[in-house]
């Protein structure tokens, strides 16, 4: 099929200054880290963007101590109405500097500028704006008349939505009077470090937010630190399980947002064009590196052939390449290691007998790339139908009856999200009831909003983020009304 060629429309990177090296942000200042340094690269070009400090245990100690001081002396005693104003400032500053953050996010993460510009940054700002308004209304949230913060929150976030996950974690923590030590992912620390500059502009008191960079050992030291009262983690189920074991027997509270393997269920009466767009958005958004991605497509047998054919046709029009080009639909895979995992699991799919189809789009020569891929003839027992691939790889299964769809959809230890496509309202509601998933999208997919709780059942973790429910994770219940 011949493709219409667009003229390149690259976003300018002049809007952002990247320093050659970054320290740790502790107690309102950048300081050196004692754990050496690591490099962060642009996954689309393999260009080294900056050296970033690695925090060791002593650095973690300093950050937790700073957060403790700030919590007890400044942030905890401060009236909610005043805390709110800082959060409103942050929301506004993020919106003012949106272009800068979007460009930096795309350079460091590899996601298309279209997504960082239209989704990540505005949604991050919206989270601060939403939770700002809660800071002086906590007595109305349903957690007692006078709920209290836990104290110091240790927050460890992933590389798929670096700035947005920062906002999901920091906004409710601060609104409720906790202070924060946040560790961004080792491959995507730059927007968190730019956020430190935004905190300077907001004149947030020192120590209220501390940002320490590093890899697994730094995160582990932070989670285990005795001075931490609350742990919030988003990432893999394997690491979440480890954290749950580490904090067992302590009085630390935890919220875990872990893996998923969402079923996106298409019934024969669905509006097929809309469903195709929903499927594409469900699994190819952010290169499929989304914990709630619709990675298992369950199609009613009577329309399976039509849906897969139309899906492939649509996928052939997706533009894969330079994330800084505003025409790009699918950007770079975040790291060489992640590309390797995706490649290995898709190979397993082939080895186990599923039928592979990959878009024949051209891929750049440097950087980490994976073309949109669809597996058909997949059964529930295949590893590609059970394990999270975290890449642009869709597995297609079929079903005949709603009962079979429910059984297949729920036959998994995960329970983060699900999608349902049908024009029949009563079926939507009955299916939504039957899905063991924390978020159910009916005739849409991958929608997020600060007012809407997000989180999973079973091995997708516990606790909810976003909305009124997201406050619960950061509060100790006050006296009964």
């Amino acid at each position, binding site marked *: 099929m011949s493709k219409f060629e667009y003229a390149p429309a690259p976003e300018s990177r002049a809007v952002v200054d990247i320093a050659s090296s970054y320290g740790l942000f502790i107690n309102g200042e950048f300081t050196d880290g004692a754990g050496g340094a690591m490099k962060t690269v642009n996954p689309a070009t393999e260009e080294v963007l900056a050296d970033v400090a690695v925090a060791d245990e002593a650095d973690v100690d300093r950050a937790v101590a700073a957060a403790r001081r700030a919590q007890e002396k400044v942030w905890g005693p401060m009236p909610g109405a005043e805390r709110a104003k800082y959060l409103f400032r942050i929301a506004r500053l993020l919106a003012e500097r949106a272009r800068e953050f979007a460009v930096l996010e795309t350079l460091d993460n590899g996601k298309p500028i279209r997504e960082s510009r239209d989704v990540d940054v505005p949604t991050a700002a*919206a989270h601060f704006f939403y939770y700002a308004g809660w800071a002086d209304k906590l007595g109305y949230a*349903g957690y007692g008349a006078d709920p209290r913060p836990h104290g110091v929150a240790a927050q460890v976030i992933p590389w798929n939505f670096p700035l947005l996950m920062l906002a999901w974690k920091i906004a409710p923590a601060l609104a409720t009077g906790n202070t924060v030590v946040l560790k961004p992912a080792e491959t995507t620390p730059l927007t968190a470090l730019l956020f430190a500059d935004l905190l300077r502009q907001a004149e947030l008191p020192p120590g209220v937010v501390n940002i320490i960079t590093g890899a697994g050992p730094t995160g582990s030291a932070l989670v285990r630190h005795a001075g931490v009262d609350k742990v919030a983690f988003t990432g893999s*189920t394997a690491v*979440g*399980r480890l954290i*749950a*074991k580490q904090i*067992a*027997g*302590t*009085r630390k509270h935890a919220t*875990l947002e*872990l893996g998923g393997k969402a079923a996106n269920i298409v019934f024969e009466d669905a509006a097929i064009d809309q469903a195709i767009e929903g499927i594409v958005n469900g699994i190819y958004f952010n290169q499929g590196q989304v914990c709630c991605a619709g990675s298992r497509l369950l199609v009613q047998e009577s329309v399976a052939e039509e849906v897969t054919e139309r899906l492939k046709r649509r996928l052939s029009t997706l533009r894969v390449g330079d994330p800084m080009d505003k025409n790009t639909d699918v950007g770079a895979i975040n790291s060489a290691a992640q590309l390797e995992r995706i490649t290995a699991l898709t190979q397993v799919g082939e080895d186990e007998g599923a039928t592979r189809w990959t878009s024949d789009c051209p891929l750049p020569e440097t950087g980490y790339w994976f073309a949109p891929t669809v597996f058909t003839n997949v059964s529930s027992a295949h590893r590609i139908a059970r394990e999270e691939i975290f890449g642009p790889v869709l597995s297609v299964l079929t079903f005949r009856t709603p009962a079979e769809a429910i059984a297949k959809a729920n036959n998994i*230890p995960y*329970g983060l999200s699900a999608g349902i496509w049908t024009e029949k309202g009563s079926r*939507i509601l009955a299916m*939504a009831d039957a*899905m063991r*998933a*924390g*978020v*159910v*999208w*009916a*005739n*849409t997919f991958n*929608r997020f*909003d600060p*007012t*809407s*709780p*997000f*989180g999973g*059942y*079973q*091995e997708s*973790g*516990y606790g*909810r983020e976003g*909305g*009124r*429910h997201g406050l619960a994770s950061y509060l100790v*219940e006050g006296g*009964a009304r």
Partner: protein
Amino acid sequence: MTARVDVRKTYKLFVGGKFPRSESGRTYEVTTAKGTFAANAALASRKDARDAVRAARAAQSGWAGATAYNRGQVLYRVAELLEGRRSQFVADVAAGEGASAKKAEELVSAAIDRWVWYAGWTDKVAQVAGNANPVAGPYFNLSVPEPTGVVAVLAPQRSSLLGLVSALAPVLVTGNSVVLLSSEDRPLPAITLAEVLATSDVPGGVVNVLTGHTAEVAPHLATHMDVNAIDLTGALGADNITWGELEADAAENLKRVRRPAGDAEGDWFDAQSLEQILAFTETKTVWHPKGM
């Protein structure tokens, strides 16, 4: 004339609506607070725990699928039966806990009242703990609490009825099914409660009651991959096990865990709360587009 010889009861487990002996054939001696023989109770094994989980799983979707109004009716009916058996519970509690007759009366009354309080929550939880979310777009967006599934409850060790009811009733409200491991030394009120449940309208398998050694049975419940959540309250004060060890076991499939509230068991008189119900729920959020 010789004095009448009383007829004594054989205490058994309660699994899937039936009263089996332990498959292991073992029993252990239960004594009163004064140290005299009270009864032999069944000493549950790993197999009994697994059978109980299987029964709970089989019953869970039906219980969760009942209307909230119906669950309220069923739970209230349990309170009616508890009231009818109050003298037996008073005798059990007085003997097992060494409480005075007056104190035992108070404990039993509080336990029955607590059951009534929770029965009334079934059709209110979703209204109080759920909400419509005003998202920035044309979507209908609703968050509702749902039961988490099969919940293992380690009943408090000291408070053999009020504590037991305070731990059990809130889990049932939203539609979870339960495997309950009773107080190790004071199991008799739990078995009497099982007899009440068996003759009530609670479907078989929704509540399963095990008696035995906490340190022997609890790890099997904590590691069981088909248990969704565990209340570790009863690990406090149990011999040869800590709640921290059980919590680490429970992490294997990321069970929801309720830790003991403090370092010592309280008196349970103030222990009723919505939070107790919500500890074993999930929040499900449903999005649907709006348009003409």
